[in-house]
């Protein structure tokens, strides 16, 4: 009945043994520990009727979750999981549903955690377009603010339901708080002086819609054209099957003053990962040398 623990000399993660869900993340160097859960959910893409600006449909150009009965739709996990432990790494493999699975991996010498997700094809049998989100909810006191990067260079401070250059009237509670994330987004707990940074492996949209939370949009499948130029819905017209996408979010929990050095190095190592070449070995070892 104990929690499942995945650990190396730098980080420790605990998972609920009944469901395989993530429960806590601890930085063993700084002794900082946060309660954290990660879940998948989706927003329903607005259909609208494109007769007026306010009734534009969600599509290739527009993300406009339909929040008429609550925005966030949780995708409950099936509760099946596997734990793999070996000399070079430990991982928990979560089976969320027939079209979402995830591997949370910690290599022996890593100071970050990999969340490797596989999503799709997104089912549309219910005729509902969906935008799939990976959301991290933590015990961190992050207030109203979070940060996203600008093309991987400097960080831009974001404040929920706020614009620094004009008084915003919020009509889209989710879309108004989504920003481009090309490399990273992070939240800070100034009391604990800790920072949770998530590195993406591609450009995505992200937000922090509640205290202690960060989320990233990992996949979309929308059934209506948004009449802004593509003239087709974001639904792989012609392939008819929907896409399976795979990707990785890399999480770093560290002190605020240590975070930048760590995520910059990791971002470069991820973006400029080694190029792998193979060649048949047909002669003796000396040729290998």
């Amino acid at each position: 009945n104990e929690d499942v623990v995945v650990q190396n000399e730098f980080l420790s993660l605990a998972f609920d043994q009944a469901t395989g869900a993530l429960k806590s993340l601890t930085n063993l160097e700084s002794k900082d520990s946060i309660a954290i859960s990660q879940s998948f959910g989706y927003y329903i893409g607005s259909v609208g009727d494109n007769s007026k600006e306010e009734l534009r449909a969600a599509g290739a150009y527009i993300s406009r979750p339909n929040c008429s009965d609550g925005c966030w739709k949780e995708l409950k996990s099936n509760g099946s999981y596997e734990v793999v432990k070996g000399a070079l790494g430990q991982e928990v493999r979560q089976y969320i549903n027939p079209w979402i699975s995830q591997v949370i991996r910690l290599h022996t010498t890593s100071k970050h955690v990999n969340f490797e997700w596989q999503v799709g094809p997104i089912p549309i049998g219910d005729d509902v377009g969906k935008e799939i989100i990976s959301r991290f909810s933590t015990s961190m006191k992050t207030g109203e603010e979070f940060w996203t990067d600008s093309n991987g260079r400097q960080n831009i401070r974001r404040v929920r339901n706020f614009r620094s250059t004009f008084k915003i009237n919020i009509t889209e509670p989710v879309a108004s708080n989504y920003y481009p994330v090309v490399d990273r987004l992070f939240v800070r707990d100034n009391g604990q002086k800790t920072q949770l940074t998530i590195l993406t492996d591609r450009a995505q949209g992200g937000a922090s819609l509640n205290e202690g939370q960060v989320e990233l949009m990992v996949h979309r499948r929308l059934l209506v054209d948004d009449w802004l130029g593509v003239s087709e819905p974001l639904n792989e017209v012609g392939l008819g099957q929907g896409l399976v996408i795979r990707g990785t979010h890399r999480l770093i929990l560290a002190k605020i003053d240590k975070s930048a050095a760590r995520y910059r190095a990791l971002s470069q190592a991820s973006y400029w990962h080694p190029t792998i070449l193979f060649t048949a070995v047909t002669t003796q070892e000396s040729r290998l040398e």
Partner: protein
Amino acid sequence: QHEVAQLREAVGVAQHHDAITGTERQHVADDYARQLAEGIGECQDVVADGINKLSKVSSPIQYQFCDLLNISQCHVTENLGQTTIVLWNSLSRTVNHYVRLPVKDGDYSVTGAGNSDVPVQITPLPKELLTIPGRISAATHELTFRAKLPPVGFATYLIKKVSKSRPKKYNRGRVLQRTARSDYLQ
């Protein structure tokens, strides 16, 4: 220069905001992917030439690449007898990188420079990965080892499939499984 030009032009074309944001029609998206893939293929020849130059071999070695490692598909490693793998590090600092290669089930050895024995972990691939539409691969496991790469340099490793009769010093990831409670499924 002409080999690099193809990718350079493909990236040039992909500066269009449609390519960056995905606001193009599906067939256009497919064409962007086609151009980039062909450009990458041309550049891989340049990388191979570079490694041949750096390694000062008397006659150029033919190298192969696997572009679908993201879905654990690689025609070289999944039909492995033995192969040499070269890892090129373009960062100007030493990098420790966990190399993950799709293989069939079995035991493997990895030998580094100076015939050093490198620890290996063999792990079954997640079931969901095996069923991805379009994945054509016999690999059911993943071979992981940690490579240490010099700044702006490369390292070479020899990977060999070894017979099971050898002593069990090649590490296997232990899979502990928990399945959903039936009521939960309901």
